[in-house]
């Protein structure tokens, strides 16, 4: 079996969860992966200071799409404060595959865009 392209990664890549448009939404943001020019946007609906629902839009490699799909399930229900505190380790662990230095930004793009929407901080997650 492939280390990186595991069945569940490819499954999320081919059928990503929570992709599309979300209307109405309260927050949104768009980020780029400078390595390849891929774009990922997010729309978020907030209720009682928590992420009630969210949708991603965009295209990218298997790693970035699967990461967004997997993260989308986990992000629902988190408070905005909790989201602002999420770091790179959270995402990498959640993804569960060895991510090389060159693919790290692919894995973290979704967290970058979500944090950008929630906190206005557009830095790469550390």
């Amino acid at each position: 079996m492939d280390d990186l392209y595991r069945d569940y990664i490819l499954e999320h890549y081919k059928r990503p969860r929570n992709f599309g448009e979300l209307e109405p939404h309260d927050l949104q943001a768009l980020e780029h992966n400078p390595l390849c020019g891929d774009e990922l946007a997010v729309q978020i609906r907030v209720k009682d200071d928590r992420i009630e629902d969210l949708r991603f839009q965009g295209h990218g490699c298997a790693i970035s799409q699967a990461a967004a799909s997997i993260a989308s399930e986990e992000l629902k229900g988190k408070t905005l404060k909790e989201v602002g505190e999420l770091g790179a380790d959270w995402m990498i662990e959640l993804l569960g595959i060895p991510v090389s230095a060159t693919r790290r930004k692919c894995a973290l793009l979704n967290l970058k865009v979500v944090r950008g929407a929630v906190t206005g901080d557009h830095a790469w997650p550390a």
Partner: protein
Amino acid sequence: MFKGSPSGALGGVRSDFPIFARRFGGSDSRPPRPLIYLDSASSSQKPRAVIDALAGHLAEHNANVHRGVYALAREADAAYEGARERVAAFVGAERETTIFTKNVTEAINLVAFAWGRANVGPGDAVLITQMEHHANLVPWQVLCRERGAELRYLEVDAGGELSLAQLDRELARGDVRLVAFAHVSNVLGTINPVAEMTARARAAGAVTVVDGAQAVPQMPVDVGQLGADFYGWTGHKALGPTGIGVLHGRREILERTEPFLTGGDMISSVDFRSATWSELPHKFEAGTPPIAEAVGLAAAVEYLEALGMERVRAHERELTAYMLERLREVPGLRVVGPPGAERRGGLASFTLEGIHPHDVAELCDRAGVCIRAGHHCAQPLMRCLGVSATARASVGVYNERSDVDALVDALVAGREVFGL
């Protein structure tokens, strides 16, 4: 063409390149792999002759240039200026109008800052093409924004080509001060009709800047015949070291252009209030230049001359034709750019349905095949092509048909990993 047969034009060259003796990876279950390098459009590998020339210079002739009166400094001078002579002759240029820079990006910035700021103003236009590398695009965006000029683009058609008719129409508007374009596109591989384009621009009174980064390493180039006012290229793609680029300029223009960078080595005299400039080409080389790198680059062009640039082009054309043919075997694969190898440099950019280019490159890496994936520093062109990225395989003098076979095998295996 037969699968796996060696390329006829340049056999046995690979052993001149020490890096191909390296083996990569390897584990209990898998033997270490050789290097299958299909990323020469990004940076070429170096022959032993270049490595030895660099090391030999540093070991035996190292001193600063243009200043010392001692014997070693004279040797360094002779090495550096001798390198300039060889590099200039390689592309049919003159020594005095051949300027060493850090890379082709700096060469183009030199023109944009030194010539552009003094000669482009409000109401003027700069004309470039949709296929430019960011290095031949962003400097003109910055110049036009600063000077209130308009930046216009020649379109790329579905076959990856520019239109001379559109060039004529743009030039006929009468406001074009400068035309800048790639000799060979780093994404599409398109070989542009440089001489026709520079002749038209010149007739319209526009200065031309040609980015030759992808052309000089793989085909005969004579900058005089091409007729560009400025022609830039870079050492590391042409079997030479990193850290050195080359700009050839038209003498009359260089003579009346103020320096780009200022400081040491480019002055004639300095007092506390002002300075005067050295003669060409030193006026455009501020500070200690890339001396050892120039020596290394001279060794690279000598090596290429010994192979013969006609043979190098024949080799890369043949290998590219083979690559285009074999890539057609991969289901869902689409190559962008000119259809055949005749009007194409030694590269193929492609997309593979169902697998993102990043994953294509990662899957190739599993098989030891090095290819590029991304926007290739040409994001506006990617948007024209309707993609965010492509994978790109590019060949050099050391590649053989077996490398292309390994690429195709890796792509086929990669599709299986993705369940396609």
